[in-house]
């Protein structure tokens, strides 16, 4: 177990990592600005010159970049376990607990005081679930409910995945939970596992969840399916970015060292990676062969 310093182990928020993930996410304007269910209005048509059309596309790309900002990936939060006062002689006075919330408007929610006085007289800080509930009651946020919807339980997530609505459930999860809550992490991991199991990577491409998914897969070294998918869709740049990211995160593996020495690029990098690191070597070799043949025929014709 290496005691890696911060320079050695890149985190999700590093610029280099974010650039790689952003390149892999792709920018399919049709999908990003696909019609969201809003109230029904007749479509508006505008007559524009070429220059105006370019300007409009440029603005659309900027807005799409904003929509594609990746939600943070954090470690699970530590449970709060802090007793402020013990007054055992109050035992039996009350039958239910009191939850006190500080309603001062100008303090951030993370620093808010939320304390619980139990019936046995103990005054303790509230747990994370109690905190989230109270903050939602007094400072309601759009799209978040006081009691998390039942759809986030494992047995119901299965139904969601069968309907291929991974992106919707991830958006709901971002709205409902805090990024470091165990529920958020659990739902995201289940979604990523299901996508990886059924190779449905394209569902998240060009959304803001793609980066998180890639990060999860690379950390657990389950990148083979994604590689195959990318090669099938002729996205060679994305494959190289993926392998670069893998090398950044696991610098001690063989292919990383080989790439460092040889300064390999493109298809060679993929071949070295496939030989050393992947489990589904056969599939990836096949896909690479098919790709090279396609390239050869297209350049020949």
């Amino acid at each position, binding site marked *: 177990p290496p005691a890696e310093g911060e320079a050695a182990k890149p985190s999700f928020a590093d610029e280099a990592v974010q650039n790689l993930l952003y390149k892999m996410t792709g920018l399919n304007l049709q999908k990003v600005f696909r019609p969201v269910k809003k109230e029904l209005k007749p479509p508006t048509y505008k007559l524009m010159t070429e220059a105006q059309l370019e300007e409009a596309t440029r603005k659309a790309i900027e807005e799409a970049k904003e929509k594609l900002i990746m939600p943070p990936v954090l470690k699970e939060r530590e449970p709060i376990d802090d007793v402020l006062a013990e007054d055992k*002689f109050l035992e039996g006075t009350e039958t*239910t607990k009191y939850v*006190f919330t500080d309603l*001062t*408007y*100008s303090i951030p929610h993370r620093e808010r005081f939320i304390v619980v006085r139990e019936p046995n007289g103990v005054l303790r800080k509230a747990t994370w679930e109690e905190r989230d509930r109270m903050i939602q009651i007094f400072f309601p946020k759009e799209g978040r409910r006081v009691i998390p919807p039942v759809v986030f339980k494992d047995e119901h997530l299965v139904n969601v995945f069968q309907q291929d609505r991974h992106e919707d459930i991830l958006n709901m999860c971002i709205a409902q939970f805090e990024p470091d809550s165990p529920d958020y992490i659990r739902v995201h991991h289940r979604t990523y596992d299901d996508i990886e199991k059924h190779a449905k990577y394209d569902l998240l491409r060009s959304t803001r969840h793609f980066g998180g998914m890639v990060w999860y897969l690379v950390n657990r070294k389950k990148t083979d399916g994604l590689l195959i998918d990318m090669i099938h869709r002729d996205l060679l740049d994305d494959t190289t970015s993926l392998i670069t990211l893998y090398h950044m995160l696991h610098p001690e593996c063989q292919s990383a060292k080989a790439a460092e020495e040889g300064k390999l690029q493109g298809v060679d990098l993929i071949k070295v990676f496939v030989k050393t690191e992947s489990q589904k070597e056969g599939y990836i070799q096949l896909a690479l062969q098919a790709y090279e043949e396609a390239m050869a025929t297209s350049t020949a014709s």
Partner: protein
Amino acid sequence: ALFAGSHLLKGYRGGHVVIRFALGGCTNRPFFRIVAAHSRRARDGKYLEQLGCLDPLPNAHGERVAGLNLERLRHWLGCGAQLSRPAEKLLGLAGFLPLHPMTVTGAERRRRRAQEPAAPPPDGSPGPGDAP
């Protein structure tokens, strides 16, 4: 306009600012607002500022929810507001003020009453009552 103010600008003699509970809600469903108001005002009448709320009935998770705007509470206490006894008890329970002595006394009394061994045998005669 000034003529409309004759009912609104009620002038009181004496009185001070108190922080107390104003009762609201419906039949069999109380709900308290913690409020800074003049002591001479009606309990549920016009107040200076609402500083929080208390729901005395337990919710689905078995807790009684209370919110307190501590910053404004400190402001009013700094302006010299007084507290009603239930407000003091609540703030004592919350930990903002030290525990009210009556809370402690009430707990002791309850414990003493619960610990009294078998209740004294019920007498048919009124015991050492006043005989006419």
